[in-house]
């Protein structure tokens, strides 16, 4: 049985015919597909008409199948209609087919679709417009391109160029079909010949200049290039004429670079002085700047920056946390991440104003473990906390707080010089060797780690500790 479609890319026609054929139970092997005006018309005589035999099998195809058909139809392979109809037939009769990603017919169709998609992608890339008719009468020049796609994709590709160059008048000429955009309507016309395309212009010379100079002769890799830009596209790419000469001189150019002895610089450009570690004159700024350079323990090299303390001098309270977290490390400020937000909520409940207290950490750089793309907080070791302690000491001496609050065990140990069991000693004033009072409580991130059911209560207790500190 012969079926004739209106054109090589007649998707609607194909769907209509295929549905009818399925309904009439025409087996794939019985159907011959042809296209009006095509060359496959040799046996036009043996026309047999099949009568529908009973209700057709209900056919629901996966949504992706329609898209697959769309692409496959643009392929130049003459057997594509037969393949698609066979697949439809099989989808109707073999329930498992749609779940088998490795079926040979399906794979064949996918391969065709893939080739067409690649061809579409290459057309997006390799069409080269040349402006013509810049008559100086204020009318925009027409941008014209000559292109030879591998498959019948012109009509499918046109909307993409329309979206991109909506404000430009342009035309793409190909042997199959031509498409023209005048700023409002997309027009499709029959194919053209290369002779109708405009010749190169001065602007194209600039493009060639760019191409010549962006190539690095020390890295010649023609095979890689040809994989992505096969020779069949070269005739229509102006820059392709440069490939052979550039490749030919590459070896000579790179050898020259390697063998050339270093020359004495002319030094016409004054060289900027290296960023020296000029320390600010004194006080906290100097301490904080010096801290940035610290690599006493291994944490320093892995973090973004040392996070300095923040707050007024001679405050009533100085809060000392454990170490910066991810957000603190990025922003260079203490307590700006989730734990910081929780702390601020607790402050609000306890009647503490963040700007009136001093916030800092026992360890200045962020210590973490990489888990895929995430930096997971890791508690600093005793040694590391010890290495970092002098910064805290000097900071306390400069800030001169009236009392200290240790958030969590690391801070407590740094401030009191001994191990502290937070649960046992929290909420009471403890004395340091230098007479300063320290109140120990949890670190807010410890609250965040509790099971949700316990969080409200723990938060209350935390606020109670803060109230005591502020009293």
């Amino acid at each position, binding site marked *: 049985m012969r079926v004739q479609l209106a054109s090589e890319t007649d998707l609607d026609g194909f769907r209509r015919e295929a549905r009818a054929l399925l309904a009439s139970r025409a087996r794939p092997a019985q159907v011959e597909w042809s296209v009006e005006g095509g060359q496959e018309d040799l046996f036009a005589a043996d026309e047999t008409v099949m009568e529908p035999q009973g209700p057709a099998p209900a056919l629901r195809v996966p949504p992706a199948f329609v898209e697959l058909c769309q692409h496959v139809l643009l392929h130049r392979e003459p057997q594509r209609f037969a393949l698609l109809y066979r697949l439809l037939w099989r989808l109707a009769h073999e329930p*498992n087919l749609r*779940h088998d*990603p*490795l079926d040979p017919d399906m*794979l064949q169709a996918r391969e065709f679709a893939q080739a067409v998609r690649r061809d579409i*992608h290459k057309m*997006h*890339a390799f069409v*080269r*417009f040349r*402006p013509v008719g810049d008559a100086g009468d204020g009318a925009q020049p027409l*941008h014209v391109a000559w292109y030879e796609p591998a498959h019948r994709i012109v009509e499918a590709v046109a909307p*993409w160029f*329309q*979206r*991109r*160059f*909506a*404000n430009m008048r342009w035309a793409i000429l190909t042997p199959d079909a031509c498409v023209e955009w005048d700023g409002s309507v997309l027009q499709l016309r029959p194919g053209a010949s290369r002779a109708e395309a405009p010749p190169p212009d001065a*602007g*194209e010379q*600039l*493009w060639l*200049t*760019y191409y*010549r100079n*962006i190539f*690095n002769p*020390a*890295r*010649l*890799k023609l095979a*890689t*290039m040809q994989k*992505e*830009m096969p020779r069949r596209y070269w005739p229509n*790419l102006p820059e392709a004429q440069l490939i052979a000469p550039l490749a030919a001189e590459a070896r000579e150019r*790179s050898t020259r*670079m390697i063998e*050339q*002895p*270093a*020359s004495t*610089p002319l030094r016409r*450009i*004054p*060289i*900027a*002085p*290296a*960023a020296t570690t000029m320390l600010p004159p004194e006080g906290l700024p100097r301490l904080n700047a010096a801290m940035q350079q610290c690599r006493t323990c291994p944490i320093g*090299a892995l973090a*973004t*920056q040392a996070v300095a303390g923040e707050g007024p001098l001679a405050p009533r309270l100085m809060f000392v946390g454990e170490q910066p977290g991810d957000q603190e*490390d*990025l*922003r260079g400020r203490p307590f700006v991440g989730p734990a910081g937000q929780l702390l601020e909520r607790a402050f609000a409940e306890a009647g503490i104003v963040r700007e009136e207290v001093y916030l800092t950490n026992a360890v200045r750089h962020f210590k973490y473990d*990489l888990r*895929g*793309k995430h930096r997971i907080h890791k508690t600093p070791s005793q040694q590391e906390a010890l290495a970092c302690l002098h910064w805290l000491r000097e900071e306390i001496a400069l800030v001169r707080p009236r009392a200290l609050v240790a958030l969590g065990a690391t801070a407590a140990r740094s401030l009191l010089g001994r191990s502290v069991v937070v649960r046992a000693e929290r909420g009471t004033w403890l004395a340091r060797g230098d007479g300063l009072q320290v109140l120990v409580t949890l670190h807010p991130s410890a609250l965040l780690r509790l099971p949700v059911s316990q969080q409200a209560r723990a938060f209350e207790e935390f606020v109670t500790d803060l109230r005591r500190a502020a009293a």
Partner: protein
Amino acid sequence: MEIAAKLAILADAAKYDASCASSGGVQRDSSSGRGLGSNEGTGICHSYAPDGRCISLLKILLTNYCQYDCLYCVNRASSNVPRARFAIDEVVRLTLDFYRRNCIEGLFLSSGIIRSPDYTMEQLVEVARRLREEHDFRGYIHLKTIPDAAPDLLRRAGQYADRLSINIELPTQQGLAELAPQKDGAAIKRSMARLRVQIEAARGEARDASRAPTSIPGARPARAAAPAFSAAGQSTQMIVGADGADDAAILATSAQLYGAYRLKRVCYSAFSPIPDAASALPLQAPPLAREHRLYQADWLMRYYGFAADEIASPRTGGMLRLEVDPKLAWALAHPERFPVDLNRAPRELLLRVPGLGVKAVDRLLLARRVRRVRAEDLKRLHVPVAKVLPFVLAADHRPARSALPSPTAAPQQAALF
């Protein structure tokens, strides 16, 4: 100087930067009848240079005058290369002209440091601003940001650019101190941190805006478009083979950068001979094979769940093997993890089989829901069957122990210098 002569110098000066990708960013086009260009999210390589690298953007420097003296760089202050400087409008016109010819997806603009980091950054931002605001350009813009430029300039750059990048340049602080004395590794990291914060803040705002409740049920929410900030993220480049850092150090640095600053890409650029090179760098052909292996290793980290030190670590000599790809190298070093059963193994394990890519694995997972996977199925997946078979079990296949390629081949590595 004529525009063609400037273009020759300033394209030549930009060719050592490996980054070129033009994918991602805010989807847009000009079909509303305004503007020029589109960005549909997938990058397009408009051409390829004979070095095999794609050309998707007009990659140029605004100027190759530079007061820094980074030894690996052709534009360093002490090099005798000819210098040039584009006027801002020249760059704008070139970009628009090449774009209309459909030669490029947009602009990748970098610059030597002139006067000060801030001044230089301001010039870069101004090019992007004119393209966007005066010409309503909707193509892709990638700006190289100057480390230590003022946060406000970074913010403005991010408003115009699809992608921002800051080059880390060398894998270790020490390398940077030796070869690029004016560059401050910590400042580079701080800039990356700032970018991550702003990119995430803008994404957060966009998310909130799209979730904003509407007063009339069913009505479309009237909302101001959230400001996109460097919507295609940030990336960086590392030069390989100019200092003594080994692959383990390089990958560890990359892993940290991905983790800390959520980079989209780290580009590895084998250091290649440059004209008028500094005497401190004895030159030779660039270690392209090593660069290739690093890209493969990077891919394993980003898409296959490998940790940096599983691929290369000081324990195993610190270098990737050149004669086999890093995944195969890992498999050969871990015979106890194989064979992997194609019909049972979880996705993570399948992904570790040499020769099986993400796509093939996902298809296998689908296929085995309906039937048992056989060795011949691999052929249809277009995977290198011979490479895969020694590492897998299938319904009809069980590898012989001796089938594993011999792991004894001595690791080979390109000499640095």
